[in-house]
């Protein structure tokens, strides 16, 4: 699947964000320093422990998820859309890469960016509070799946967008609210039964809960069920990506 051509595209995609740390790594680092300082230190001391964990430790998995998926999504959507806007995506489209290879290269590179940002946030969190990992393998697999999932969503967003405003709308008005209502800052146990059921419709809940389980060993949902839902959803999204590339959606006349 990863031919020389696909590796070349993957390398190009990695270099694109690695060479622009001021645009790609610095903003989430600063934002998360502020989150940890304000929610963890300033406000956290006044908030009761949740499920037996200090508040700063409880929110850490959610913030990692937020940073990871936002960056995976942004990278894929921006790379595709900027390439379409300036038409240099034609360099890829006129090459002998298969549509599957194109999607895999774009998604893999964007997922890597999401994971790097996730690691940066974890490292920042570790500066504020001791961080433990209770289920390392589960955590690694889950982080991999959610970063691929949102890179896959980013491909759809990049193909669908008609201008740069559309990218902003997707990130600010769809992604971010879903994450904030995905139990980043609270436990599902704190909600009424009705809202708890409604929350289960939000895919972010499964991600935050899974990553929290990986770090803290605590979850509101059944961990393997959450992972299963995420893997299934990721497979569907990647299939949609490849289909859209095959059909030339947003790419060809």
């Amino acid at each position, binding site marked *: 699947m990863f031919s020389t051509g696909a590796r070349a595209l993957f390398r190009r995609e990695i270099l*694109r964000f690695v060479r622009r740390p001021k645009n790609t790594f610095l903003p989430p680092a600063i934002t998360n320093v502020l989150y940890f300082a304000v929610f963890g230190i300033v406000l956290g001391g006044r908030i009761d422990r949740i499920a037996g964990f200090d508040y700063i430790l409880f929110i850490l998995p959610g913030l990692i998820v937020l940073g990871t998926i936002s960056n995976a999504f942004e990278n894929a959507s921006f790379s595709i859309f900027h390439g379409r*806007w*300036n038409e240099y995506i034609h*360099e890829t489209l006129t090459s*002998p890469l298969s549509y599957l290879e194109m999607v895999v290269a774009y998604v893999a590179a964007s997922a890597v960016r999401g994971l790097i940002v996730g690691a940066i946030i974890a490292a920042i969190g570790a500066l504020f509070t001791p961080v433990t990992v209770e289920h390392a393998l589960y955590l690694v697999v889950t982080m991999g799946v959610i970063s691929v999932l949102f890179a896959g969503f980013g491909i759809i967003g990049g193909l669908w967008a008609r201008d*740069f405003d559309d990218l902003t709308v997707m990130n600010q008005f769809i992604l971010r609210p879903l994450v904030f209502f995905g139990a980043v800052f609270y436990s599902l146990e704190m909600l009424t039964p009705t809202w708890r059921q409604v929350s289960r419709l939000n895919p972010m809940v499964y991600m935050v809960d899974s990553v929290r389980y990986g770090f803290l060993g605590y979850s509101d949902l059944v961990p393997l069920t959450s992972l299963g839902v995420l893997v299934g959803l990721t497979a569907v999204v990647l299939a949609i990506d490849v289909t859209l590339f095959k059909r*030339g959606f947003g790419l060809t006349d």
Partner: protein
Amino acid sequence: MPPAIETRDLRKEYGDLQALSGLSLTVEEGEFFGLLGPNGAGKTTFINTLVGLVRKSGGEARVFGHDVETDYQQARDAIGLAPQEFNVDRFFPIREVLAHKAGYHGIPQAEAKRRADDVLERVGIYDKRNERFDWLSGGMKRRLLLARALVTEPDLLILDEPTAGVDVQLRHDLWELVTELNEEGTTVLLTTHYIEEAERLCDRVAILDEGRTVTVATPDELKERGTDTIAVRLESPPASVPPLGEYAHETSLADDRLEVRVDDGGSTAPRLLNDLEAAGHEIADLEITRTSLEEIFVDLTDREDRTVTRSSASGREGGEGDGDGEGGGAEDSDGNGKTDDRPPERETEGVA
């Protein structure tokens, strides 16, 4: 060996608009083939169908026997395209852009870098290898597009208006380079508005109009299809046009100058002179003008919106990068309706 390009009844529709309406064309391997046609004739749509940027509505298109949709990987691997638009990756220095493009075609990294250097030297912009695309002049951008098409060492080189809006020196450099490539065995498909270019470079040309092939022939064959003009200056201006044989399709008299349109000027001139002398006229001077390819082109594509440029009369000879419309300004005129609302490049870079 299958033809380099073979299309049968190729069609592309955009709603009610027929961009390609049953285009059938064969380009043999090793040919230098020209595509001529007015704006909107379907030249770029045709090219983009071959490389996968346009999806055909019907018909067949093959590149070296590979169907452009079912065997798209093999078809695309054989093609190097230098498009009209400046569609180059802005994020990387041009040397890396070329190495990436070679990489997408399966060429290992070290070899891709070597090829990038080679083609940059070949098109004469090696010293700019560490610059980004946006910092190149218009002429250098054109050279880069050609370099990008060559870096994969394609069997079929497609050049879409490669010399539009470039200066005379660059145009001649490009002509020399593509002629050399063709002599080395690369099949070349060239679209151009410059009739002189097609006349000078192409083994055969196809004239397209309204999405279909009007004719395919060598430039000489095409010119033979037109009429010639014999202009005769008479010693004494006659009062009216002297009676001439059926060979004269059209005559005009202005003072002592008589112009006669005939099929073949060379073989008809002696008859015309005999007829004039028999009628008592004395010949002072005679000139035969052959039909130009440009005139044939205009006759075959007789439409109000046609655009045809004879390079010697072009007003764009002044310098690199100052072309307009179809040429150096192609970036601003891509036909996708994005002309006015694109933000500047550097504004977009900071988004993600």
